[in-house]
């Protein structure tokens, strides 16, 4: 059964299909432990230079402030590292780099980068916004950043790519897409 899971997981990573392979494998319960074992099995063992830790000690999930963990990034603990908020709407992408105490470092969006109207809703625009935000943040002395993504827009992935291309090092990715528990009623369905 584990072999089936590992094969399915590899096919997942390789082909990049949707959730179908996993759904067919009898409804795997991707519990934390199993996912972690899979990550440690399939990923090649590489030396962990940045996190000052031994090789096979990578935890997929972030260190909780309560329980002591010795992971540091340039001397800072996980909860003191600046945060890059990325709001990826369907028409635009906003990026704001903030310190751990909510002091702003850099704020860019596709509009501030000179794109107009429909061109703001593209992946390339989000990437340029990411590069600009990373450049501004690096000038203020930021090196590592935790990324928080909000929304399912075209710039979701490419904004993170832009941040890494601009010179910031991303250490974790969080998804903060607002999921209402049946709160406000959204607008009516479009009839095309």
């Amino acid at each position, binding site marked *: 059964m584990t072999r089936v899971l590992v094969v399915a997981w590899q096919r997942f990573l390789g082909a990049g299909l949707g959730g179908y392979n996993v759904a067919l494998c009898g409804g*795997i319960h991707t519990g934390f432990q199993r996912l972690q074992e899979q990550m440690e099995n399939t990923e090649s063992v590489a030396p962990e230079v940045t996190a000052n830790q031994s090789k096979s000690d990578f935890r997929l999930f972030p260190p909780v402030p309560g329980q002591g963990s010795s992971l540091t990034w340039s001397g800072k603990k996980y909860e003191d590292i600046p945060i890059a908020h990325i709001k990826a709407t369907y028409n635009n992408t906003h990026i704001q780099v903030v310190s751990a105490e909510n002091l702003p470092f850099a704020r860019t969006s596709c509009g501030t980068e000179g794109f107009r109207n429909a061109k703001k809703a593209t992946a390339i625009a989000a990437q340029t916004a990411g590069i600009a935000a990373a450049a501004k943040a690096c000038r203020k002395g930021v090196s590592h950043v935790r990324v928080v993504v909000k929304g399912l827009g075209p710039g979701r992935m490419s904004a993170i790519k832009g941040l890494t291309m601009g010179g910031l090092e991303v250490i974790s990715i969080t*998804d903060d897409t607002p*999921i209402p528990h049946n709160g406000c009623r959204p607008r009516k369905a479009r009839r095309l």
Partner: protein
Amino acid sequence: MSHHLKFIARTVMVQNGNVDAAYRTLSRILTVDGIIEDAKRRRYYEKPCRKRQRETYEMCRRIYNTEMARKIAFLMRKNRQDPWLGC
């Protein structure tokens, strides 16, 4: 999400600067948990009648797919080494 603790749920650490793999892992987790399709569905309002139709359709599809998978798994038992070697 301001009522919950931050950086605990829906968070993935990046290993060796491999942001692509981490993003893919996060997307897989979210898809399997049904969060991505839920967010897409909530973009526009889905009337109760449409919602009921969709639920029955998905249930029928799930039943059909599982039964077909069972049938294929059963029939594939025939696909084995020939013990009598063509006698």
